[in-house]
């Protein structure tokens, strides 16, 4: 867009928006199923490369079982939140939609979602769902998001660099530090461990691993635990790898997770906290990395597994759905049994149903088994508050990390400020 063009374009966009709104009003909620035997569904684009074929199969099965037709629309992740908000405003939400785990409480709080507990109980799967995803989908003690699929972050390491430096994959924090020191000695120009400043989900495992909490709910009030001694110890260890050990890099202070992935794929990083969905992307970015990296669950301070955030999606039923039983039939079909398994296999994520994971857990693939272990034994959720989006928008945790890594602030000061801000935002008082 050229500079001189900006104003006319803005005006044109306004006109388009206006036209779109008018059209939406005139349409009278075309997305609704008005007893005509159609179920409208929004699914995020890009999770499963074969999504079209997958949903063709689902449609056939769904029609056989219920006689209703399925109308699936694919939505870009980037636009999705705005589209949900506008459609909630206009009452044109779909009957069922894939909702990112952090959005579910937000939309539930806005009154847009239907509670699912009765259906889940009736289907007899309440005890068979992955806990971290249930926590993330629960708002006000009711389940609004049915666990569908998710990934998890673990410690991914470069096996080639590890072998040459003569170190074993770490199982405690002390071993992480020793491994980093050995890597730095052997490869002074590489990044022994990437400590990114703009990637909040790589921070929480260390908070939890030291026995701290990100935030806890007591009655109606959230309290952030980032300033507790345990949390500070965890944050101090993680940032200390960069500030005291010098095992990270100056650039990493402003890195996002995508930057970590780029550098890891280039073979420049010894170890980093990365998602179970990244191995494919690493090999795609650099085919030489194939077979040269593996994962271990993130160690707790003195061993064991530190909890790590599950990133994934729920399927949610919207209040605008006329036939909620029909909607649930679809949700159940998608999130349990055969189709859930198939979706997980095709997309490279884990299903939200625990019994489906048994097989995965027995895998010996160094890029599957450790993630699966982390997923089942060390999966956690960020605070399931409708206001958590505000904490993310304000980049509270990244601000803390960046100020520590750049040396502007110490762990105690930065974590106290972050805890205060997070508590205020979570309680919606700021």
């Amino acid at each position: 867009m050229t500079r001189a063009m900006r104003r006319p374009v803005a005006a044109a966009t306004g006109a388009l928006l206006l036209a779109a709104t008018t059209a939406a009003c005139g349409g009278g909620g075309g997305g609704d199923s008005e007893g005509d035997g159609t179920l409208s569904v929004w699914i995020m684009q890009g999770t499963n490369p074969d999504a079209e074929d997958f949903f063709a199969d689902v449609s056939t099965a769904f029609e056989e079982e219920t006689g209703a037709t399925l109308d699936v629309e694919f939505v870009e992740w980037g636009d999705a939140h705005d589209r949900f908000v506008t459609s909630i405003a206009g009452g044109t939400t779909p009957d069922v939609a894939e909702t990112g785990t952090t959005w579910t409480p937000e939309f539930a709080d806005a009154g847009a979602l239907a509670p699912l507990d009765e259906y889940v109980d009736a289907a007899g799967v309440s005890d068979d769902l992955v806990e971290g995803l249930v926590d993330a989908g629960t708002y006000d003690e009711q389940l609004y998001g049915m666990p569908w699929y998710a990934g998890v972050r673990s410690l991914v390491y470069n096996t080639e660099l590890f072998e040459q430096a003569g170190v074993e994959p770490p199982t405690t924090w002390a071993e992480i530090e020793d491994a980093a020191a050995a890597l730095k000695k052997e490869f002074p120009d590489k990044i022994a461990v990437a400590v990114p400043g703009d990637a909040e989900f790589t921070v929480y495992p260390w908070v939890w691993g030291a026995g701290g909490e990100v935030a806890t709910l007591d009655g109606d009030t959230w309290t952030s635990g980032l300033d507790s001694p345990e949390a500070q110890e965890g944050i101090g260890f993680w940032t200390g790898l960069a500030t005291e050990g010098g095992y990270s890099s100056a650039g990493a202070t402003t890195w996002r997770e995508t930057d970590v992935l780029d550098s890891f794929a280039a073979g420049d990083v010894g170890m980093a906290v990365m998602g179970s969905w990244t191995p494919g992307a690493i090999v795609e970015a650099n085919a030489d990395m194939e077979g040269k990296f593996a994962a271990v669950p993130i160690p707790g301070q003195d061993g064991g597994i530190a909890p790590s955030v599950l990133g994934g999606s729920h399927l949610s039923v919207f209040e605008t759905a006329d036939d909620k039983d029909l909607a649930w039939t679809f949700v159940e079909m998608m999130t349990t049994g055969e189709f859930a398994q198939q979706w997980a296999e095709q997309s490279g994520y884990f299903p939200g149903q625990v019994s489906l994971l048994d097989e995965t857990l027995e895998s010996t693939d160094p890029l599957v088994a450790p993630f699966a272990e982390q997923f089942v034994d060390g999966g956690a959720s960020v605070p399931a508050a409708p206001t958590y989006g505000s904490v993310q928008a304000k980049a509270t945790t990244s601000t803390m990390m960046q100020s520590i890594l750049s040396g502007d602030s110490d762990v105690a000061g930065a974590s106290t400020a972050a805890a205060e801000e997070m508590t205020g935002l979570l309680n919606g008082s700021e």
Partner: protein
Amino acid sequence: MRPWLLLAPALAVLAVLLLWPLVRVFLFSLQDYGLREITTGEPNWIGLENFREILATPELWTVVLPNTVGFAVLSVVGTVAFGTAVAVLLASLGTFWRTVTSSAIMAAWAMPAVTGTYVWVWIFDADRGVFNDVLMSLGLLDDPTNWFTNRWTFYAIVLLNVIHHGFPFVAVTVLAGLLGVPKEMLEAAEMDGAGSFRRFFSIVVPQLRQVFAVVIILSTIWDFKVFAQVYLMPGGAGSNRSVLNLGVWSYVESFGQNRYGFGSAIAVLLTVLLLVITAVYVRTVLAEEER
């Protein structure tokens, strides 16, 4: 009556496209308007509370406004000065070289802000950027430096980006004005012994007052509203609080948190501020004109 009748269609379109949204924004600014209000459709009037909250935010006065105003001043001066210099250069070139040069600067203009920003980010990247590489191979720098964590170096990069993106518009506009300056006046001045600087500042600049008014006002408005060029920089999306400007701050505080009323109030204040700046500037230009 006749002129109004002729203007009516245009005015009606403007009212629908510009005035009504403005009115809506103003109405939103008086409410605590979030996702819940959107869902229920019920207004939630809180009077001037949003405005009070904005003005009572210490961050606004210590970080956001100084960054915004300081940056706008520097980038307007930089853009206009550099653009004018390029225009003078273009005016003195022959047809062939003028075409070549203006095509080159058009490329900078045509580059989308997002793409341009990523190019600058890449140049100054700490680990793989060209800039650090050159400094280190010249021995001026021992270890890679992250230029994005410091407020001043961060904005120096934004300044480069915005001037690079904004100067072609100024250059082309000023060039059009330059070509309209009567040759006779310049020749007469030369005969009277005026040097090239004297000729430029005493004849060309006064002739171009209207042109400068336009480019300065437009640049001021644009540079006040800089968003993508800051938001997309490492740390610019809110995790480095010392580099927040008005655009990013209002986005993070309002739309990022579904506080549409609060965001509208910021938009109203920004509109008023820009109107005041424009009015003052237009008045000074007109006053000089009359003198």
